[in-house]
Every structure is written in C-alpha cells, then in structure tokens.
C-alpha cells in the first residue's frame, strides 16, 4: 500500500517535471505507446474475435432501444389524448360519452398529429358541434345567485361560466373545429 503510494507520487512528480520541459513530446509518444499496447490492440483483437456475437448483441440492443422508445412515444400520445378526452367530458360532450373505445382513442391520436393543439387556458372553453344536431347548445340562464351561461348536450345542463364574466371579456368560448369565438348575440336565453 505504502510502496504503491510512493510509486504513484514519484511517477506523477517525474511526469509533471517532464511535461513542463522540452521533452513533453517524448511523454506523448510514451502515452501513445502505452495506450496502444495495453488498451487499443487488446480491445480491437477482442472485437475482431467476437465480431459475430458483438454484431448480434448490438442488433438486439438497438431493437430493444427502438421498441422502448416507441412504447414511450405512444404512451405520451395516449396521455395527451386522454387529457383531451377529460377536457371534452368536462364541457359535456355526451355524444361521445358512450362511445369510448380504443378505436376512438387512436382516431384522437391521429387528429392530434394533423392539427395543432388549441391554446389551453382556464378562461377558455372549446365547444364541439356547436348548435348542430346531437351537438352542444349554449343558453343564458337566470340563476338564483347570478346569471350564467350553460351548456346543454340534450341530457344534462351544466354551468359553464358567469354571464357577467363572459360579457366583460374575462371568459371566452370558442367553436372547437373552426376556432371561431362564439359571441354573446349567438347565445339565446333559456325559456
């Protein structure tokens, strides 16, 4: 242990002294020789002798990495699709409510790929199939505490935002497909 330490220190001291002198190039040649004879040539020989195993193993590793990457990629896409689904569910998309299936999920993923994601904000709502058959309708409702805008999907009414916020411009409602903002005049009062 002690002799090993002494050897290391003395060799290091000599190397530093030589490195700072004009014999630096000799030290470089020495390092090159040591690296070649002790590391590069044995490693190269090992690779040459195991070339078949090395190739097969590297192909396996590449395939595994590829599969893992693909899995992670699909997982991410699925997450984004499901978050979109939650978002739609929040604003009462009842037409799609009963049709939750894997195919629909994959369709959503494809849609995600083709169009850019709408800007998400807490003060925005995106309405799918606005005023269409089996779509969502919007109404202004006189509430007990305050007036509000409600969504109606044919089954359930749900409060979307307060009317005063909407008219002051604090809350925006957009049509999901066209990204057109739905104005206050387009929303009738509930009878």
């Amino acid at each position, binding site marked *: 242990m002690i002799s090993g330490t002494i050897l290391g220190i003395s060799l290091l001291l000599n190397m530093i002294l030589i490195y700072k002198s004009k014999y630096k190039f000799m030290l470089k*040649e020495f390092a*090159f020789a040591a690296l070649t004879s002790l590391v590069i040539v044995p490693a190269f*020989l090992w690779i040459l*002798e*195991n070339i*078949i*195993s090395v190739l097969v193993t590297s192909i*396996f590793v590449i395939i595994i990495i590829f599969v893992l990457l693909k899995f992670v990629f699909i997982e991410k896409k699925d997450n984004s699709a499901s978050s979109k689904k939650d978002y739609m569910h929040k604003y009462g998309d009842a037409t799609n409510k009963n049709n939750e299936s894997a195919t629909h999920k994959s369709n959503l993923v494809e849609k995600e790929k083709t169009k850019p994601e709408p800007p998400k904000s807490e003060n925005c709502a995106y309405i799918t199939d606005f005023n269409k058959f089996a779509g969502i309708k919007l109404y202004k409702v006189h509430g007990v505490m305050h007036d509000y805008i409600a969504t109606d999907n044919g089954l359930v009414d749900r409060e979307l935002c307060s009317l005063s916020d909407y008219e002051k411009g604090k809350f925006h409602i957009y049509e999901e497909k066209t990204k057109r903002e739905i104005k206050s005049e387009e929303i009738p009062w509930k009878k």
Partner: protein
Amino acid sequence: MFKYLKDLKNNLIFSIKNFKTDTFNSLGHLTPIIIVFISFMTGIIALIKFILENGYHQQIELLKTNGIVGVFGKFSDGTTNVLSQGLMLYLIVVLLFINFCIIIFNYIKNEKKLKQFISMFSLVCSIFSIITILIVSGNIFRLIRISEENQEVVLNIYNNISN
C-alpha cells in the same frame, strides 16, 4: 491521427540516422515505436492463432444450431489473454518502464541540478517501490517461473532440431 503517424515516421528516420551521435534521444523515440510494433505483431499472431483454433468456425456452428440466440451475449476471451496477461504483457510493461527511464535520463542530462536531483530521487523511489510490490505480491517469483518455463521450451525446441 494521420499527422501524428507522419510525425512518428519522421522521428523514426531521424532517430535511426542520429543513433550513434545522440543515442539517448534516439532511444526515446525508438522505444515507443518498438512497443507499438510488438503489440501489433502479437495481436496479429493472436488473431491467426484464434482462426487456426477454429474460433470463428465454432461461432458459426453456434449460429447455425441455435440461431441468433445461440451467439447472443456469448463473448469469449479467445486469444486476447496473450496480450492482456502472460509474458507479452510483462515484456510490454518492462519496455514501457525502460522507455520512461530513458525519458527521465534525457531530462536529467539537460536540466539544472535541483530538478536533476528531484527527478533522480523520484526515479529511485519508483524503482524501489516496484521491487517491493513485486516481492510482496509474489509476482517476481511468478516472473522467474515463466522465464524458466520459456527456457525449457526453447531448450526442447533446440534439442528437437539438433536430434
């Protein structure tokens, strides 16, 4: 890399030409080249030995019988132990040490007295510590045994030839 090899070639020619006039300097250039040459030659011989021992043939047979799974992750040391352990490794390490000593002697020859003393002192220290390590680990006896075995091999070959 190519520039480095070109410099190496120029140094080799220069050191062979000036070997008589500037022996230590020339040896400083020549020893690394000799070490690299020896390791390359040993590598080539080891590869030939591996081919002659049907190393590749065995791997191909494995591939044929068990498919890709047969060779997956099955790395063999083959003949790399010629370079990574044994006499050739000792030879290379000894040559590297000789090369290092030559560099130090070159340095000592042309430097001031204080630096000469420090360098000389650390060289002596390193030599003593190497001897101590070899004795303590018992490798010195192994080295002697290897050299005796080699002597026997050489003697056997000589006897066979003479008979």
